[in-house]
């Protein structure tokens, strides 16, 4: 058994436990984007960073991939961690402004402005399909790739390219025979959800369903969507009409 301290509390866990698992066990919340129980930790989104060690030798590490070590001192909510999360979410909102999940995380962490220009949507026509397809807002969390490979045992999609060219892709841009059209990739995607169109004070509905379009590379006839009103809409709807939240308007034409 390994002894660690999380936010001052002592804890004993089995060898091989990650910091995230230890924190979840004791009940400390750590935000994540690319983590999913049942999939191997990936460490791409960087949202789960926590501070380990003592100053001046302390550092930020991703709690989902870092395994606990004897005597480790962990802080899940230090100033450094909070600053990192806010700066990260600022970048995430700019990368994926229409993602409800990311907008929610940003407002929960107290992000009040986004200093970057939002990503304009990428329009792409894939051979064989008539429709231009959106691949906007993909944060490359890898959940779709990992669920396809590890849970569905299909391996029909993967990552292609390096650096800014990296993207989720089908082999040679063709739907693989291995794709069983199961929709797990759609289900797993944190961006592929209700489109957040910002607060609409005149109606109760957030109107997200009107703007819904899946952010993957094929259109499905039966979309699987999970509609829940977002915080901004809840606050500015019939519950709290006096509160105005300043949300930067996406500056591009749809």
């Amino acid at each position, binding site marked *: 058994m390994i002894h660690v301290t999380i936010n001052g509390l002592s804890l004993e866990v089995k060898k091989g436990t990650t910091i995230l698992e230890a924190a979840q066990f004791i009940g400390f919340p750590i935000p994540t984007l690319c983590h999913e129980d049942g999939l191997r930790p990936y460490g*791409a989104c960087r949202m789960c960073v926590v501070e380990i060690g003592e100053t001046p030798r302390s550092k930020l590490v991703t709690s989902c991939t870092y395994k606990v070590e004897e005597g480790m001192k962990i802080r899940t909510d230090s100033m450094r961690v909070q600053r*990192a999360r806010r700066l990260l979410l600022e*970048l995430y909102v*700019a990368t994926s402004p229409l993602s409800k999940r990311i907008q929610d995380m940003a407002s929960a962490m107290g992000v009040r402005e986004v200093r970057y*220009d939002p990503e304009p949507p990428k329009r792409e026509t894939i051979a064989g399909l008539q429709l231009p397809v959106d691949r906007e807002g993909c944060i490359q969390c890898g959940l779709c790739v990992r669920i396809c490979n590890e849970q569905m045992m299909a391996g029909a999609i993967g990552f292609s*390219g*390096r*650096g800014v060219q990296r993207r989720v892709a089908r082999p040679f841009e063709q739907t693989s025979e291995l794709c069983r059209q199961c929709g797990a990739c759609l289900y797993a995607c944190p961006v592929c959800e209700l489109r957040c169109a910002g607060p609409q004070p005149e109606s109760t509905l957030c109107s997200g369903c009107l703007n819904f379009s899946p952010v993957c590379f094929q259109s499905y006839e039966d979309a699987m969507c999970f509609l829940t009103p977002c915080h901004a809409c809840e606050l500015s709807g019939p519950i709290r009409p006096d509160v105005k939240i300043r949300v930067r308007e996406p500056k591009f034409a749809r």
Partner: protein
Amino acid sequence: MKAFYIHSLEDLHELSTAGNSSLYPNRTKILVGMATCGQAAGANEVLQAVQEEVEKGQLPYFVMGTGCIGWCSQEPLLDIWVPGQPRVTYGRVTPERARKIVRALPEIQHNWAVALMHGDDNPITGKFKKYWSSKNGHKNGLPSYKDLPLFKHQTRLVMRNCGIIDPSSLLEYVARGGYLALWQGLRKHSPEQVIREITTSGLRGRGGAGFPTGKKWQAVREASGDPKYIICNADEGDPGAYMDRGVLEGDPHSVLEGMILGGYAMGAHEGIIYVREEYPLAVSRMKEAIQQAEQAELLGDNIFESGFSFHIRVVKGAGAFVCGEETALIRSIEGKVGEPQQRPPYPAQQGLWGKPTCINNVETWANVPVIVTRGGKWFAGVGTEKSKGTKIFSLVGNIENTALIEVPMGTTLASVVYEIGGGIPNGNACKAIQTGGPSGGCIPADKFDLPVDYDSLMQAGSIMGSGGMIVMDDHTCMVDIAKYFLGFLQDESCGKCFTCRVGTQRLMQIVTRISEGKGKEEDLDLLEDLGWLIKEASLCGLGQTAANPVLSTLRYFRSEYLAHIRDKRCPAKVCRELITFAIDPVTCNGCGACVQVCSGSAILGEKKKPYTIDAAHCTKCGACLEACKFDAVFVN
């Protein structure tokens, strides 16, 4: 040459004699610097010209190629060694001049010669082989290498054989004390003793991170897992850095010897040299050296009849800078995508194929034979308290002596730039020096009293890194430099972690905006915030240092950024959107040279009358500035 085996000390001595008769024959020897830098400058044509002259005149001279002696700005280099005479070096040799030099032998062509050598240092044995003393006669007026500032401050331990031996000759390597360290290690020391010597020496990883090598070797030795692996990181991706290339091309056996000793010390029997694909000459030299060592049974089973066996193979990279990162390198060898992995676990515990792996840089391995023969304590006498030994640097940019130099740790930047480098050409002032490649930063000229070692440069906001040193004069725009390195990092990022992939992209967008005069003052705070995030939260070393070029230029040259933002002006007159080209009507005599080269057809006027530049069509390529012989073109 009949096959020979090297099984004992006696074999080494016997073959030394053969090697010495090749190093110091009883006939005139002509050496041409045939490293990649030499070949790029035209050494192939020079070698061909020499060979043709020698054949034509049936001259009794030996002609051979050698590695990089480090004097890159003088390439192609031609050396003549006449028995009993000093070795004379000719610089900037053309094929025509080469023919004249050969024909005139043994007479020296003084106006083309640049230096002479009295003898050769041998750091392995500690002895100096003198082949000429000044009593022997003629005064040449030629400076000796030991008197030239470029060379007299150098201590060539790692580059000991570069430029002296034929890199394709195992015999010459042995004659210079090669494989003596291996014999001593295998036959006289235990593995633990070898590690002790390395630890005593204070050697730290030369790839840039500077981890104590002895500690790493000890960790691999103690790690549980079988088999263990030795890897040589020869990926060398930093732009402008070619230190490892010099060693791989000029003295390939030194790396092999170091690796076999490492294998013995740590209990590994397989070594892999991962060379970047863009170094074809280095790859072929290493493969040739491995073949020679295998034939001589210095690689294989039962080396030096000690019972120890070791094999080495070469693996080529596939064009990714990120594969210089150790975990990405290991993935690449395993045939997977070169994406870095989180550490811990470190390769020493779980490396190649999940087994304990020691991965060290080329320069680190090449230091090992010297440490074994001279002892760790001797080695620790070179350098500073925390940074022992020497370091090779590639000194490039706006510098008089572009060179590959090797100096003791602790040498100051001022000494490197002004003494060894010979200062800035064309009477320009020095602005800064960029060290450590894309992971490093810029250090302004007023901080050149800093010593070069692992720790001092880090406090100034840069790193020593693997040894790249780019000197910049006052015609360099620091915003432009930040943009250049960001572009490189953006290209080379593996793309897995969000902060590096998107962060470098965003940094690039902001810095580009600033260089175009569209920046806002708030952008500087944003650069610092984003730079902080990328540094703190990225997965690997590439990401963690990706913001350094921006952060260090912002730290020391903030006024330059502000000039771009507030005044929409580039003080160094580099950023294209902010400069205009114009012709001085007083100086211009209408010769029309600029019109010939103008890429935008933007120069208007008639012959013999002053020309003007139409700003609307000017592409700011700068061709007119170069073409004008009357200094009539100027930049605003």
